[in-house]
C-alpha cells in the first residue's frame, strides 16, 4: 500500500452501523423531556440508564413515604437497601421489583436492534391490587407511626397492572423511536464524514498518480532539450570547419578555381551557412526552453534599434523593389531589455516581412509608446491590472498575409503556414517560436494581425525603463 495514502476513516463503527454507547447517540435533553412528560401525565417517576449504568434522564419527586422513612434510622437503612436493588437490576425483560413500602418499580431493558443498550425505570407506584400496608414496612422500625405511614402511602400513585403494562409499552415505544431517529441522524452524519474522507482519499491517490506522470514527462522533456543542445553543439563543430575551408577555397587561398569548381564551392558554403543557421536556431530554442538563455536587462534606445534594423534590411528590400519606411515617435522612453535579443526578435520579423512582400510593396518599421496589460480582472483589479508603460515595436508588410485560423499556431516550433513555403522561401519554422520565447523572457507580449493578400503586422510590446 502506498505510504502517502491518507489513513482510512477512523473506526466509526459504520461497518455494522451499531450504537456503541447510548449517551453518544441520543439527545439527553429529549430523553429528559420524555421522562418529565410521563411524570406529569401519570405522576410516575421515570429514569433512563445507559448499559454502563449512567443515569441519562430523570424526572421524579420523592414520595412522602420515603421522606418519612428517612427520618427513622432503621427505616432509612432498609429503604436504601431496597432502592439500591432496583438501581442495580439488569433484567432481560420487563421486571417488577418491590421495595420496602410495597410500592413497585418497573425495570425495563431497552433493546435496540437486538442488543440491550440500557434500561428505564418507572415508579415507585403502588399496585392498585395491593390493599393492605405490608407488614414488613410496619415492622421496619421500632419507632414507626402507623398513622403517618397510612397518610404518606395515600399520596403515592396507584396503578393497575393492566395500565402499568400499557404505560411501559408506551414509554418503551417512545424511547425506541427517539433512539431510532437519533441513531439514523448519527449514522447519517458519520456517513457524510466517512464518504468525504473516502472520496478525498480516492482523489489524493489519483492526484499522486498524475503528479508522478507529470514528473516523468517533465524529465523526458528535459532529456529531449539536453539531447537537442548536445547534438546541435556537436553538429556545429565540424560544420564550422566545412564552412571555413569552403570559404578559404572560394577565396583562392589553395589556388585558383575553375568557374564550375567555384560554383560548387559556393554552393557548399551557402548550404553550410543555411545549416549553421538552422542549428543555431535549434540551440537557441532548446536554451530558451531550459531557461538557460540569459537575457540581459539594460536601458535600450528604441529609435537606435529600429533604425539599425531598417538599415540592415534596406539593401535586401531594395533589391526586391520594396520600399522601407521607418516611423518612430519622438521622445520615447528607453526599453528595458537585452539589445542583442531585441534585435534578434526584430530581425526575424523583418526577414519574414521582406521575404513575403512582393515587388512594389512596403515594409514599415515603427516604435511608439504603449502599455502592457496582463489582463487581470476581478479581485483587486484596480491594483493588479494597472498597466505598465511600454514600447510597441511594429513590423508591418504588404505581403501575402496569413489566414485567420492559422494565427494562433504560428508561434509553435516547426510550424509553417504552408509547408511548401520552406522550399520557396527558405526558413526553418523555428524563427517565430524563438521570437515568442524571447519576448516572453522579456516579460513582453507579441501580437499578430494578418489578412490574406493584404499583409501582416507584428506588434512586439516590451516594458520601458520605469520613470522615463
Amino acid at each position, binding site marked *: 500500500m502506498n505510504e502517502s495514502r491518507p489513513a482510512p476513516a477512523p473506526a466509526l463503527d459504520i461497518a455494522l*452501523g451499531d450504537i456503541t454507547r447510548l449517551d453518544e447517540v441520543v439527545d439527553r435533553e429529549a430523553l429528559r423531556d420524555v421522562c418529565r412528560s410521563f411524570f406529569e401525565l401519570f405522576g410516575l417517576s421515570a429514569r433512563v440508564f445507559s448499559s454502563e449504568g449512567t443515569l441519562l434522564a430523570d424526572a421524579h419527586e420523592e414520595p412522602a413515604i420515603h421522606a418519612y422513612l428517612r427520618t427513622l434510622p432503621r427505616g432509612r437503612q432498609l429503604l436504601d437497601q431496597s432502592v439500591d436493588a432496583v438501581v442495580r437490576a439488569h433484567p432481560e425483560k420487563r421486571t417488577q421489583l418491590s421495595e420496602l413500602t410495597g410500592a413497585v418499580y418497573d425495570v425495563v431493558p431497552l433493546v*435496540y436492534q437486538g*442488543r440491550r443498550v440500557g434500561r428505564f425505570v418507572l415508579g415507585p407506584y403502588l399496585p392498585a391490587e395491593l390493599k393492605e400496608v405490608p407488614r414488613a414496612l410496619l415492622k421496619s422500625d421500632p419507632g414507626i407511626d402507623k398513622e403517618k405511614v397510612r397518610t404518606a402511602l395515600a399520596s403515592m400513585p396507584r396503578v393497575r397492572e393492566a395500565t402499568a403494562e400499557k404505560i411501559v409499552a408506551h414509554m418503551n415505544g417512545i424511547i425506541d423511536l427517539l433512539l*431510532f431517529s437519533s*441513531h*439514523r441522524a448519527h*449514522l447519517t452524519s458519520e456517513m457524510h464524514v*466517512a464518504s468525504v474522507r473516502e472520496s478525498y482519499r480516492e482523489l489524493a491517490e489519483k492526484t499522486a498518480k498524475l503528479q508522478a506522470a507529470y514528473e516523468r514527462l517533465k524529465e523526458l522533456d528535459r532529456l529531449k532539450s539536453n539531447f537537442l543542445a548536445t547534438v546541435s553543439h556537436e553538429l556545429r563543430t565540424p560544420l564550422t570547419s566545412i564552412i571555413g575551408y569552403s570559404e578559404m577555397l572560394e577565396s583562392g587561398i589553395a589556388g585558383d578555381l575553375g568557374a564550375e569548381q567555384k560554383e560548387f564551392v559556393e554552393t557548399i558554403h551557402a548550404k553550410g551557412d543555411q545549416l549553421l543557421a538552422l542549428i543555431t536556431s535549434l540551440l537557441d530554442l532548446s536554451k530558451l526552453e531550459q531557461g538557460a538563455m540569459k537575457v540581459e536587462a539594460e536601458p535600450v534606445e528604441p529609435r537606435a534599434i529600429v533604425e539599425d534594423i531598417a538599415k540592415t534590411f534596406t539593401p535586401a528590400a531594395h533589391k526586391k523593389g520594396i520600399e522601407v519606411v521607418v516611423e518612430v515617435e519622438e521622445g520615447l522612453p528607453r526599453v528595458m531589455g537585452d539589445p542583442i535579443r531585441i534585435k534578434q526578435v526584430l530581425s526575424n520579423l523583418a526577414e519574414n516581412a521582406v521575404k513575403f512582400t512582393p515587388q512594389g510593396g512596403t515594409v514599415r518599421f515603427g516604435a511608439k509608446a504603449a502599455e502592457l496589460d496582463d489582463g487581470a480582472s476581478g479581485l483587486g483589479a484596480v491594483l493588479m491590472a494597472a498597466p505598465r508603460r511600454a514600447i510597441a515595436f511594429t513590423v508591418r508588410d504588404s505581403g501575402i498575409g496569413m489566414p485567420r485560423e492559422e494565427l494562433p499556431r504560428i508561434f509553435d516550433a516547426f510550424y509553417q503556414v504552408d509547408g511548401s513555403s520552406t522550399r520557396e522561401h527558405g526558413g526553418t519554422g523555428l524563427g517565430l517560436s524563438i521570437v515568442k520565447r524571447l519576448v516572453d523572457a522579456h516579460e513582453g507580449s507579441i501580437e499578430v494581425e494578418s489578412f490574406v493578400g493584404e499583409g501582416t503586422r507584428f506588434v512586439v510590446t516590451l516594458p520601458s525603463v520605469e520613470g522615463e
Partner: protein
Amino acid sequence: MQIDFQARELTVKLVYYGPALSGKTTNLQAIHKLVTPDTAGRLMTLETRDDRTLFFDLLPLTFSSGSGIQVRFKLFTVPGQVIHNATRRLVLQGADGTAFIADSQVAETRANQQAFLNMQENLRENGLDPTSHPLVIQFNKRDLPGIRTDEEIDRLAERGSEPVFKAVAIRGVGVIETFLGLTDLTWRALEEKHSLHEKFGLDPDEFLRDVRVRLGIEGRAAE
C-alpha cells in the same frame, strides 16, 4: 462478523449489492414485511433523494438460538448509482456475505456487469477475496417484459459456482429464498472460519433450520 463473548452475541453483516434501481431496497422492504416484528427491527433508510438511496438502508434481524446465543443479522444495501462508489466501498467494509441483485431486463445486462465488476473491486479494496466471499445472485423483476428467460438464466447459472435466485421483490417473491441462500452460505463460511459449533454450541444445520422456521418457511411446509 463481530463476536461478543460476554454478551453471548454474534453479529453478521450481509450486504445487498447491485446496479442502480435493481431493487436492493425493495428486497429489504419485502423481508421487513414478511418477517415477524420480534425478529425484524425497524427498517432504517439513510438519506434518500427522489426515492434513490444515497447512503444505505439497514434492516436488523435478531434470532435467539436454543443455546442462549443472540444472533444478529444486519442487512445493508449500497447506493447503486455509479457516482456513489466511495459510499459503496464503505458499506461493504466487513461484509460477511453479499447478495448481488441483478436487473433481469436484457437492456440492463451491461449495468449488471459493471456493477458486478465494481463489487469485486470494492471487495478486494476492503481486503475480501471475491472468489471465496459468500455470494448469491438474484435476478429480480421477473415480472417485467424484455427480460432474460428462465432457461437462459439457468443455462448461464450452471457455468458459475454461486447460487442464483429469481425474484419479484416488489411482490415479495423469491426474497426470503435469496436471503436464506445467502445466510446458508455465509453461516457455513463463518462456521469454517470461527468454529461456532465448537465455541458456542451452535450447530449450523440446527441454526439454519431455526432461521427457516422463524421466517415461516419450514413452518409452512409442515402445515
